[in-house]
Structure formats: C-alpha cells, structure tokens
C-alpha cells in the first residue's frame, strides 16, 4: 500500500485545494488508507493553507473520518430504533462473533472493523449496514454469514453480489409531485418568459414553505437573498439525517432533473452563479449518478454558461459530500461544512440569506422544496394550492417505517390526519408514532386525529410507527443516545445536557431511576430548549419530554423504590499473587 502522504498528495492533485474540496480529499485518504494519520494531515494542511490542528479538528468532527485507521473493511450498522426492531443487535453480534472482532474495535490484523452509526436512511428496507461507505440493505443472518466469509477471503467489494447493493425505490403512494413527468428545461424556459419577479410572484402565490420542517416561506427567502447586495449562492440541503427519514434518497434519484432545475430557478431569481448540493455521506452511493446528471445538464445547456442561450444566465452546480454529522442538517452548520470547516452552527443573525457561504447571500433549501418550486413554476401556483390546508399548501412526502405492513414513501396532501396515514400503511394499533423523527413529536393514540401540517404536526418527513408491544421509554432512551452522539459540542447546554439526559435515561432503563430523576429530565429539557445554540439542542429533549407527558406509567414501572444502587467494582483478580516490582 502506498504511504499516507503519497495518497494525500494524490488526492490533492485530483481534487485541488479549493476549500470546498477539503472533505473530498479527506474522504479519499480515508477510503484508500482507512484512516488519516498525522503525516497525511500535515500534507493536507500545507496544501489548503490551514493549520494541522484545524485539519485535525475537521477530521475529529465527522463520524466517517478517523485519525486511527479503521478496518480495510469498515462496517457501520445503521443504529436506529427501526433497524433494531428488525433484529439489528443480533446481526451485529453474529458478524462480530464470526469475524472475531469486538464492536467498535479494529481487528488485530487491520482487516475489519465493526461499529454502529446514526440512521443511514434505509429504515424501510433495513436492517442495513455500510461497508466502506456503500449501503447494503435487507440484511438477514444468511447474508451476514456470507459477508463474513467474503471478508475472510479478502474479496474486493466489486466481487460481492451486486444485487446486495441495490436500494429499492420504495414509493408506496405517489401524489402530484411524484407522478408528474419531468420536463427538462421547461421550467427554465417559462422562467425566462416570466422574469425573476414573475417566478418569485408565482412561488409566493403558491404559499410554498420549506419542506425541512421549519416551514419558512420559500419565496421570502429567495426575495431577501435577491435583495442582499453582492455575489450570491444557492445551496441544496440533501443532508437528510433525521432518523427515520429517507424520502430524499428517492427524490435525488427519481426527481434529479426537477431538483437541479429548482436550484437553477433559485439562481435565476437571486442572480447566483454558483450552487452546491450537500449530500449526506450515507447517500454516497447516489453521488456518481448525480454527478452524471449534472454533467448531462451542462451539455444540454441547462447548467453552466449562457443557460438556454440567455446571455448572463450563468449557473453551475457542485456536489459536496458530507462526512457523517447530523448537525450539518442545520443550514449554517452545513455552510461551514461546505467551506471545509467543523460543522458547528453559526451565530444568527446574520442569516444565510444575507451572510451565508463565505459571508455572501445564500439561499438554502432542501431537496423537496426545490422540486416543489420547479413544479410550481411549471404547473402554476393554483395546481399547488389545490392540495393541503390554508397554511400548509401542497403535498408532503412521508418516510414511513417501523411496525407497519407497508413501509415506504408516501406523498400525501398536507392536513392528512395521522390515523389516515396509519390506515394507509396498515399499522394496526400502534402504541405511538414519532412524527418528524426524534426532533419532532412523539404522539400517542388519543392524538391520532392530529394532522400533518405546519400548524399542527410539523415534520421533515419521518413517520416512525411503534407497535403495541414497543416500550416508549426504551425508544426515548435510544434517541437520547442519538442526540448525545450527534451534539456538536459547541454550546454548554447541549454538549453537557444531551450527555446528562442519556445517562439519566440509561439509569431509568436499568431500573435504577428515581422520581427525582424524572423531575431532573423535565428540568433538563427546559434548559436545553431555552439556552441551546441551535435546533439540535432545542429539540434534543423532545422524545424524552413527549414520552414523559404521554406515557408516565411506562416510566413509573421502570423506577425502583430504593435509591440508586452503585455498582461495586470488580474484585481485583489474583490479588494475592505476588508480582515482581518494576525495577
């Protein structure tokens, strides 16, 4: 194997030293050397004009980059309640046993490492794992045994059965957005007729709000950005990291044209000449197709210089692949990540529309929003407002997973009651539903008449169904682990609060919790909500406080009468044995 510095130089030669290429360079070193040792960091730091410590800081921030080499076969199991329902834990144990490696460790010969990673967006076809960044869904014990064999034989991934890597589309219930055929370039032609103000007016009239869950009016965002002076950027947030969400995975494959066209429309309105599509690392298997699509649009005159022959309409698009950090779904953290920094959220104000990428006015929308914007320009605001409610226009894509007969992607009009969704996916009588993922709302059966809408249950799209035998406390505990793992560590309340919350939940699940611990959880939730720096901390207590409010009897059942039972340390082994003293 070439040495790490050689690989680093090679990667730099291939990707260049623009700041947006830093993650790509680090990814390549990681892929080829299985880790990024200090010597490689120094080469990268020099080339990018950064300090070694800064590069070390970037590497340490992202789950998919490591200083210490991982296995030649680096395996990460998706750690999500839904994957666990499907027998994830047994599969991990089985694989580790066969390979003779402990979870979280690298085998002594460096061949393989097995660990868990936050939800990889394959809940509808789990359990799933990533091997060197490539996804294998639909695992079962037989496949695990075969994987162990292939690793022992040191077979390259290219020789593994290709069918394993196939990710099904999983569209269960298409609606107007998914059914309409793509018409490449058509929306741009219309836009050239309408002019930027006309496009804005059409989107404004449609009432389109951001599909990520926060619901900010898209037209307003574009308008503010357009009005801010200076060079502009357009960014697509395809960092779909909310556990239980996977609809972007399919939109990125099935509606690529509409997505890129939507971004190009935003560029047309704001005057941006450069855009970035920030793809979560877990969806790295989509990168090649996306790159190809972008290239094709360039050749077709739909991207690049003089788009559709219009002088001065220049816009090009670059793909940036993240490196495993949920917090980068927060738009300002995402911008830092594109700039090749640690993905900590920025202080706001100023907001990205006035000071985004490199301090320039930037529109950041998610995949579904750009696609909706494109369809609105094509089909008119009235087509869009035909669906949904007064304050939540259009349809919403839901990623449905968990205890139901028909998991998958559903496009439903805003305003659909939860109960109706449950019938559609054949969920029986669940104990509860996590709407919007752990940062959303955990609701119980009496609330199943509530509606999917910004004014009621706002959601980025996750819809996790928990069957009658599931324990809401255990699920909340898993989510508390998720938030502690994904907290960026920037601010005190979230860095410490998520860790404290995780400990308290472990204590309760271990039967050692007290009534005082429940009160502490509530206070902690209030503190994180009030004082945290960004949405991650604001919502990190949601699963705990939602379940505390709705399932107090499940918590009470877990408590023990007596106080905490401290764990005595193991009695020292062979303590009698005399040992020769070190010289």
């Amino acid at each position, binding site marked *: 194997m070439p040495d790490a510095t050689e690989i680093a130089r090679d990667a730099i030669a291939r990707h260049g030293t623009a700041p947006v290429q830093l993650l790509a360079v680090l990814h390549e070193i990681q892929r080829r050397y299985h880790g990024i040792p*200090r010597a490689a960091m*120094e080469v990268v730091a020099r080339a990018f004009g950064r*300090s*070694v*410590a*800064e590069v*070390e*800081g970037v*590497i*340490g*921030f*992202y789950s998919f980059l490591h200083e210490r080499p991982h296995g030649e076969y680096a395996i990460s199991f998706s750690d999500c309640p839904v994957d666990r329902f499907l027998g994830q834990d047994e599969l991990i144990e089985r694989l580790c046993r066969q390979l003779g490696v402990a979870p979280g460790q690298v085998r002594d010969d460096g061949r393989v490492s097995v660990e868990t990673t936050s939800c990889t967006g394959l809940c509808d076809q789990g359990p799933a794992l990533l091997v060197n960044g490539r996804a294998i869904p639909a695992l079962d014990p037989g496949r695990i045994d075969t994987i162990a064999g292939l690793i022992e034989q040191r077979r390259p991934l290219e020789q593994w059965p290709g069918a394993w890597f196939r990710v099904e589309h999983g569209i269960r219930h298409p609606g107007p957005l998914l059914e309409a055929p793509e018409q490449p370039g058509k929306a741009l032609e219309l836009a050239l007729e309408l002019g930027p103000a006309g496009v804005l007016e059409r989107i404004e009239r449609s009432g389109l709000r951001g599909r990520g869950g926060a619901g900010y009016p898209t037209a307003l965002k574009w308008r503010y950005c357009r009005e801010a002076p200076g060079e502009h950027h357009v960014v697509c947030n395809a960092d779909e990291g909310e556990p239980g969400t996977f609809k972007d995975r399919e939109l990125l494959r099935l509606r690529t044209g509409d997505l890129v066209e939507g971004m190009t429309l935003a560029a047309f309105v704001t005057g941006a000449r450069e855009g970035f599509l920030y793809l979560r690392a877990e969806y790295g298997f989509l990168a090649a197709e996306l790159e190809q699509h972008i290239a094709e649009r360039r050749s077709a005159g739909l991207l690049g210089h003089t788009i559709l022959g219009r002088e001065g309409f220049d816009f090009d698009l670059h793909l940036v692949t993240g490196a495993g*950090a949920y917090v980068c779904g927060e738009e300002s953290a995402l911008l830092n990540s594109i700039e090749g920094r*640690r993905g900590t959220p*920025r*202080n706001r*104000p*100023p907001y990205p529309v006035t*000071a985004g990428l490199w*301090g320039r006015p930037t529109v950041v929308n998610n995949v579904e929003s750009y696609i909706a914007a494109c369809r609105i320009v094509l089909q008119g605001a009235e087509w869009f407002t035909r669906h949904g409610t007064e304050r939540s226009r259009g349809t919403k894509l839901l990623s449905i997973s968990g205890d139901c007969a028909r998991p998958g992607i559903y496009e439903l009009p805003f305003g659909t009651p939860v109960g109706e969704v449950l019938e559609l996916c054949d969920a029986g009588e669940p104990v509860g539903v996590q709407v919007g993922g752990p940062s959303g709302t955990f609701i119980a059966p009496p609330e199943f008449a509530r509606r999917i809408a910004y004014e009621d249950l706002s959601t980025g799209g996750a819809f996790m169904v928990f069957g009658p035998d599931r324990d809401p406390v255990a699920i909340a505990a898993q989510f508390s682990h998720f938030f*502690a*793992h*994904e*907290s*960026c*560590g*920037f*601010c*005190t*309340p979230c*860095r*410490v*609060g*998520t*860790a*404290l919350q995780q*400990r308290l939940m472990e204590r309760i699940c271990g039967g050692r919790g007290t009534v005082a611990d429940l009160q502490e959880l509530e*206070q902690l939730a209030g*503190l994180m909500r*009030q*004082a*945290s*720096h960004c949405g991650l901390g604001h919502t990190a207590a949601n699963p705990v406080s939602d379940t505390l409010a709705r399932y107090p009897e499940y918590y009470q059942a877990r408590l023990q009468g007596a106080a905490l039972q401290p764990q005595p340390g193991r009695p020292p082994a062979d303590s009698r044995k005399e040992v020769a003293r070190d010289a």
Partner: protein
Amino acid sequence: MPEFLLDGRSVPFEPGQTVMEAAIAAGIYIPHLCWHPAFEPHGSCKLCTVDIDGRPASACTRPAEAGMQVTSGSEALRRLRLRLTQMLFVEGNHFCPSCEKSGDCELQAMGYYLGMTDNHYPHFYPRRELDASHPDILLDRDRCIFCELCVRASRKEGKSVFALAGRGPQTRLVINSPSGRLGDSELDAGDEAAGICPVGAIVRRNTAYRVPIGQRRYDLAGIDEESLARERPLLGRADGPTED
C-alpha cells in the same frame, strides 16, 4: 444614540454593538465566560443568556436594537446560569482545592456569583490528556471549558496554536505542532494566548503562587465588579461583531 431597556434601565448603544457590549459599556454586568471584549464573540458558554422581547438569546452575539426589552437579572435566569455553570463543573475535572488557579478562576468566581454550593449533576470524571511538554506553559485539559479564547487569541496573534477537535462530549483542545504537543508548538509564555484562559487549563508555569491565596483577583472582588472594571475600558471602540 438609540437605546434599549435592560432590566428596566435605558442602555444607549452605537449601531453595530451587541447587547453585551452596550451593557458592559453602560456599567451593567451580564455573566459570561467565553466572551472577551478584545475578540469576536463566540456565543458558546451561554452564561449570557438573556430574555429579549420574550425569547431567549445570547447577549454576546445579539446585535442591539432600539426599543428591545432585555431581562438579565431575573431569578429564573440566575437559576439557568447556575445550572450551566454546574454543567461545566461536572463535565470536566474541576478540583478547586488542588488547582493553582483558585482565586483567579472565572469558573470558580462564577460559582460564587451565582450562589453555587454543589455540582447538582452527576460527574463525568472524564480522562483527558495532560500536556506538560512546554517548559513555560502547562496544559491541563481536565479544566478546559471549550470557550476557545485561546484559539481566538492565538489566531489573532498569527500563530493559531490551538484548535478544537472531536465532537460533542468528546470535544478536546488540540495543538498545532507536528507532534500535537505544546512543547513543539510556537506558543511562547509571553503570548496573549498563554494567559487568556479563564480557568486553569492553560497556565504559565512558575507563576502560580506569586500572588498568595487570599489576595487574588476574585479574593478581592466579585466577578461582576472585576469584570466591569477590566472590560469596560476596553470597549472604547464600537467594533461590531464579526462573523467568523
């Protein structure tokens, strides 16, 4: 000059100033650990959380606006700040009786100021690496609170000796040198970055007991008085916050 209301008092400000800058300049203390008037605001410790028109905000990063209603001195906010301070205590290894910074430590002084008598939360007792490789400066990561003042100071001095690495509770201070050790870095004892640490994480060696216990900074004054006396004169400028 435009004004806003802070706990019922009118505070004038120059456009571009943050709530914190205007308050300190007006002689009103808002608790803080990561903010320093000489550096761009960071907004991470959250001790300066105030209530602005009914919503929580960090005073150190929020630009002042005319007519804002700011609450800082409420019992609810004292309690919030107390909990945040206790969080900082339990996540590291802070043993005041054996720390040479005792009496000069802003975290300890913040504890006094907020009436802290216990740590409230369970302790993490993390294992963090001590770096004693530098002849003149000691880095004791046990006491680091991730305020990044050293990072900012060293960057301003053109050396960029420090950076944060890791994520979440595993966040750690790292050193820009080939070995990653302080002794191999460009840090000099005379650097501002070597003396800016508000706690005992970065200390100049052989200076600890020059000022005897009982006569140290916070032995003589509370952190509120001391902070105003030291920081207010530094706010002569009207620099706005700069986004990093």
